[in-house]
């Protein structure tokens, strides 16, 4: 459906490939070239924005696997990210483990904690699950802000820069390459996971978990697997976030972030690979825009209350989420699909 006419496949593997035509490959390579050369032409500030966007894309991709593909709503994703971040910092500073190992184990730790809270998903779903993940967020953050001897309590912990293959990643552009590469791997894994037996089992459970069980999908196993995978990605994102900011405390992972992640994947489009990417870029750029424009507005209209700068961002985010749910519940990914199709068919309507 997404292909121009006249493209044929001569093997099953060819038919299943994500990138089929030379044009696909051209755009992919161009995108990669632009991404990898970004530190050459972006200022430090925009590089840090890009870093945060990529980290958030990893977290949102995890949430998308859990919520978008498997249908298990989680309002505690920032909590699981916090688990990953703190695991990573503690493993680095206390035990001095090499960074790749730290990254992996913080993902695994977050995944295990996520699975623990996900056990109840066998019997409950929808709102019940949302509330139990909300409880998870509050419990995790409470433990983190009070277990002073390990997590540093509300004072937080300083994070040493990551060391990969003997290189100490200190500058924004060094961190950019690390984060970019991890993001690409994560998106690759997520895209292919959705096409495997596991991914299809997730979708079956989302559409109707009873029917899925009747068809022979083990719901408990796959729900737990979805929780593990989703929170594993959150843990990785948390670990990268810690090493990116250089300092973490419980307030780095507020409950509002958890809500924002859901907003991002809904704005982007649930259950698609590009959805989280679009959603994250949209919301983060909106955030950047607001931080730049609102002080100017404040200066231009002195009559505005002093809370304008603080209050405008959440209001805008909330309105965006509401408008998207009401008018375009399939998100930007759907718009992108429409755009691609009409681009290919232009100037004919079909």
């Amino acid at each position, binding site marked *: 459906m997404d292909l121009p006419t006249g493209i044929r496949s001569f093997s099953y593997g060819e038919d299943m490939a994500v990138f089929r035509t030379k044009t696909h490959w051209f755009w992919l390579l161009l995108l990669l070239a632009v991404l990898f050369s970004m530190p050459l032409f972006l200022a430090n500030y925009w590089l840090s924005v890009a870093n945060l966007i990529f980290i958030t894309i990893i977290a949102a991709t995890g949430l998308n696997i859990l*919520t978008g593909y498997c*249908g298990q*709503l989680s*309002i505690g994703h920032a909590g699981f990210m916090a688990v990953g971040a703190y695991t990573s910092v503690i493993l680095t500073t206390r035990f001095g483990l090499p960074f790749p190992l730290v990254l992996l184990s913080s993902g695994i730790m977050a995944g295990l904690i996520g699975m623990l*809270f996900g*056990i*109840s998903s066998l*019997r*409950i779903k*929808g*709102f*019940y699950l*949302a*509330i*139990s993940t*909300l*409880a*998870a967020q*509050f*419990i995790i953050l*409470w433990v983190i802000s*009070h*277990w002073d001897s390990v997590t540093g309590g509300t004072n937080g912990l300083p994070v040493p820069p990551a060391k990969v293959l003997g290189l100490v990643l200190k500058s924004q552009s060094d961190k950019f390459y690390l984060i970019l590469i991890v993001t690409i791997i994560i998106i690759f894994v997520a895209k292919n996971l959705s096409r495997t037996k596991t991914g299809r089992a997730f979708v079956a459970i989302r559409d*109707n978990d*009873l*029917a899925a069980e*009747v068809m022979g999908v083990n719901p408990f196993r796959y729900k737990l697997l979805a929780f593990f995978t989703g929170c594993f990605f959150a843990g990785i994102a948390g670990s990268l976030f810690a090493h990116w900011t250089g300092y973490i405390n419980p307030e780095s992972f507020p409950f*509002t972030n958890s*809500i924002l992640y*859901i*907003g991002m994947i*809904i704005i982007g489009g*649930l259950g698609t690979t590009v959805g989280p990417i679009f959603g994250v870029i949209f919301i983060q750029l909106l955030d950047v825009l607001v931080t730049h424009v609102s002080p100017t507005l404040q200066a231009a209209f002195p009559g505005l*209350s*002093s*809370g*304008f700068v*603080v*209050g*405008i*961002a*959440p*209001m*805008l*985010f*909330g*309105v*965006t*989420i*509401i408008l998207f*749910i*009401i008018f375009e*519940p399939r998100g930007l990914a759907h718009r992108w699909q429409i755009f691609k199709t009409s681009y290919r068919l232009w100037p004919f309507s079909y």
Partner: protein
Amino acid sequence: MSMFLQFTVTGIAVGLVYSLIALGFVMVWKSSGVANLSMGQMLLLFAWFAYSMLAQKGIPIWLALILVLVFSLAVGWLMERVILRPLIAQPILSLITVTLGVSFVITGLVSFLWPKGIAALPRLFPQNPVHIGSAIVSQEYLWAAVISLMLFALLSLYFKYNRTGIVMRATADDQKAVQACGIAVTKIFSRSWMLAGALAAISGVLMASIGGITFGLVDTGMRAFSVVILGGLDSFLGAIVAGPIIGLAQMVGGGYLTPLTWPGVNDVIPFIIIIIVMFIKPFGLFGEERIERI
């Protein structure tokens, strides 16, 4: 012993206010199947509105409280009409997320309109504390308990004898049957949202008069979800019974556990209860266990 008595009285009082919040939630859930996760933010908004009426505008108390009530009904109506009406029969995921969006909007609105972020309501109740046995309890707690109990009585009369109340119960039971009787279900949705708004306003003012107006009111709303879960999502009785249980667990348990564990344990107890209930009895004490068919 006086400690225990004190924890018990405050726990029950706070728990009854939790019950009010939970009732607002259950009402919307039963009639329209929408999970309103912005309950805490609504509490905050109405508390601030009451503050600006009472402290900033200096309107007499009775008029100010009526204005708060009218405002809360208007907000409830507006939310249903503008945001939830277009989403009828959408998946639960959208319905939950849209209320989360609303919670963002309200948070932004509150920090926009009342930038100082923290305030104390003018005293609504007499100041001198009351001695119950050996415990000393400030009057706000007792008034909160009394007002909540009165509201429960009023609401149960409303649901029993008032025509709209009866229709609301019928809608909760079977929407199609209600529609077949020629009653506009959307009007009922609207009513239940307005009632939920009013309950949020009353509980917001009560909570604010106990603990002041802070963003902590949002967390209070979140903790009230544990009441909903423990009592059962679709049970009014459950909400009323579970409120004091949660309040007691929070105050008594928190009071005695704080020296043993970390400070602030009373704030997290409701969430731990949620997790425990989910494992043991996910549909709550009085909730109806749904049997699904394909």
